[in-house]
Each structure stands twice: as C-alpha cells, then as structure tokens.
C-alpha cells in the first residue's frame, strides 16, 4: 500500500492533524478546523430539520389535505419569535408543548423501567454472598442519598457502605472510560496510518 490519492482522505487527514495539534499548542489550524466542523454540523441539522418538516408536516398537509397539521407547523414557526423581543413570549407555547410531551413520556417510562423493574430484579433470595452484596449495596446507595435525617448510628454505617459501593461503580466507569478514550485515539491513528499514509493494512 502507499499514500492515499483520495482528496477526501487528504482533507480528513488535515482536519485530524489540525485538531490533534491542539494537544500540543492552541493554534490557528485547530481553530479553523473546529469552526468549520461546527458550521457543517449546524448545516446538517438544518437539512435534516427541513426533511422532517417536509415529510411529516408540509407533505401530508398538501398531499392528503390533513389540515390539522397546520397546528404544529404554526407552533414550530412560533419558536422563532424568540428573536424578536416584543413577541418573544409566543415562543413559550411550542417550548411548553415540547417540554410537556417530553416530561410526560419520561415520567411514565421512568416509573416502570427505572423503578418497578429495578425493584423486581433486586428481589433475590438471600442465599449467596453475591445476592447479599447486590441487595444491601442497592439499599445502601439509596440510603446514602437520604437527606432529611442526619446520618448517625446504624444509618451512618449503611450510608458509608453505600458510598463505598458507589466508589466501586465509579472505578468501573473510570476503567471503562479509559478503554473508550483509547478506542477513539486508535480509530484516528488507524485512519492516518491505513487510509492516509498506507503504511498498514
């Protein structure tokens, strides 16, 4: 293999090196590449927003004559009143709608998936050390986040145990994160060595 002759690979390689150079020193190339990618990202969001509005809203409105869709289209446009001081309060209506739906969906899902099902799976027979750690660890963490009483006496021991269990979790997260961050670097280096320079396959 040899060095790439593909224009896209060269642009991507320059962008990659430009940004990696920030680790060594803040420099104009980094700033330039960063700004370009913020721009591309915002442009991409615009495109996909438009496609959604076209396919979900305007399309069915015109083709199927579904006039009820004028409501969300009008609400969506009201979002942009925030850029005009006098009528900016109108943008609260679409925001309120989005927040209302999102909050309702989250509440109804959380109580089942994050609470009831988690309680169910913690109800294990107390017949092994592992089960005991799972049960008492979960209880300990819940009690650690108990704020309306001073943690003294036995409560103190339970909550200290809870904090220790959490530290194991955070350690696991730490160890896992190292793998993730290195995977990201490996991915970029592999791109440079294989796709751009062609020194590995």
């Amino acid at each position, binding site marked *: 293999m040899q060095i790439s002759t593909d224009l896209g690979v060269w642009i991507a390689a320059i962008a990659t090196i430009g940004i990696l150079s920030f680790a060594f020193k803040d420099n104009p190339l980094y700033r330039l590449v960063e700004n370009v990618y913020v721009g591309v990202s915002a442009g*991409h969001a615009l495109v996909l927003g438009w496609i959604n509005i076209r396919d*979900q809203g305007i399309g069915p409105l015109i083709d199927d004559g579904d006039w009820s869709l004028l409501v969300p289209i009008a609400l969506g446009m009201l979002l942009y009143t925030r850029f005009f001081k006098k009528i900016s309060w109108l943008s609260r209506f679409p925001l309120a*709608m989005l927040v209302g739906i*999102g909050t309702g969906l989250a509440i109804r899902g959380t109580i089942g998936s994050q609470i009831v099902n988690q309680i169910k799976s913690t109800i294990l027979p107390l017949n092994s050390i*592992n089960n005991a750690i799972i049960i008492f660890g979960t209880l300990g963490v819940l009690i650690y986040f108990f704020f309306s009483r001073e943690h003294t006496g036995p409560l103190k021991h339970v909550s200290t145990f809870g904090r220790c269990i959490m530290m*194991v979790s*955070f350690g696991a997260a730490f160890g896992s994160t190292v793998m993730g961050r290195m995977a990201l670097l490996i991915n970029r280096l592999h791109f440079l060595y294989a796709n751009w320079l062609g020194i590995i396959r």
Partner: protein
Amino acid sequence: MRQELPMILAFIVGILMIVSFFFTSETLGEAARTVENWGVIVAAFALGLASINLIQIHAKKITRGKGLDWLYSGALLFSMIGMAVLGIAKGPTHPTYQFWFDALFVPGQATVYAMTGFFIASAAYRAFRIRNLDSAILLVSAAILMLANVPVGEKIWSQFPAMGEWLMNVPNLAGQRGMLIGAGIGGIASGIRVLLGIERTYLGGSGS
C-alpha cells in the same frame, strides 16, 4: 397570562401522555398519538434555532472581531450555509454532501473526542491520587477493571477477567442500580414540578 397559558399547555399534554399510557381508552390513545406526531414536527423546527444563533454571533465577529476571528467565523458560516444549501437542494445522500460529511464533519468531531485520550493520560499522571478511602477504592477497582478489559491482563494473571466480571456484575451493579432508582425518583420529582409550573426555567423565568 404570558406565563400561565404555556404552563397550562405543558400540563395538559404531559398528563395526557401519562394517563393514555396507563388507561385503556381509545380516545385518549388517539389524542396522545396526535400530540406525539405534532411534537415531532415542532421538534424539527427547533433544529434551525442553533443556526440562527450562530449567524447572530458570527456575523458580529466577522465585522467586529479581533485578529483572525473574521477567518474563523467566516469559515463557520460558509460551511454551514454551504452544507444547508447542498443538502436541501440535492438531499443528504447526494455524493457531494456525503463527501463533505465524511471528509470534514466525521474526522473533525471524532478527533475532538479522541483528544480526551491524551488528557486522561496526563491527568492519570498528575491528578489521580490516592488521598482518601474514596479514591483508594475507586482507583483499585479501576485498575482491576482495566486489566480485565484487555487481553494483556489475562497474560499477567489469569484471574483478572473473572475478577473484572465479578466487579462489574455484583458491586458495580448494586451501585448503579441504587443510583438509577434514586435518579429516577429525582427525575419524577423535577418532572412533576415542571408540569405543575413550579419549575419554569424553561420558559425563561427563574423558578417560582
């Protein structure tokens, strides 16, 4: 009124989402479906807000910025408008569009994330200290998991993978589950405050 009407709207759609899920009612189900469809459309409009913000900020920087600001901001606006025009005219799977997406956006963001790999290494050397019981437990459990995660760990001691798995599936599980339930209750509490209009920062006001 400018505060109350939106709050009432949020309350109604929020409660509708909850009630329609728990009760067997065709009418409520239908209403919830309609509101969901509308929500998706309104959310699509929201995708354009960021670009208007960017135009406001960077147009100012082009005319009044210092040093090379005009270049950075100009490049940002140019690439934003270029992508938008190309994507809307030709569609996002057009080869030219996908070319710029793959050549600039993907490597750009991937590399910004990747840089944190360097930062974690220097923080490992300079900042991560065993200074109390918390950090001692944390760093020991992290070390075991790191050795369990990579093939070389097993070469060092054959028991590392098993220890890592135990750590992940027993104490870590307990810790994560406790936090998951706690955060779930916290989320419901703040959700209720939002629906009842006690918390209204999203409307641009400050609390109750």
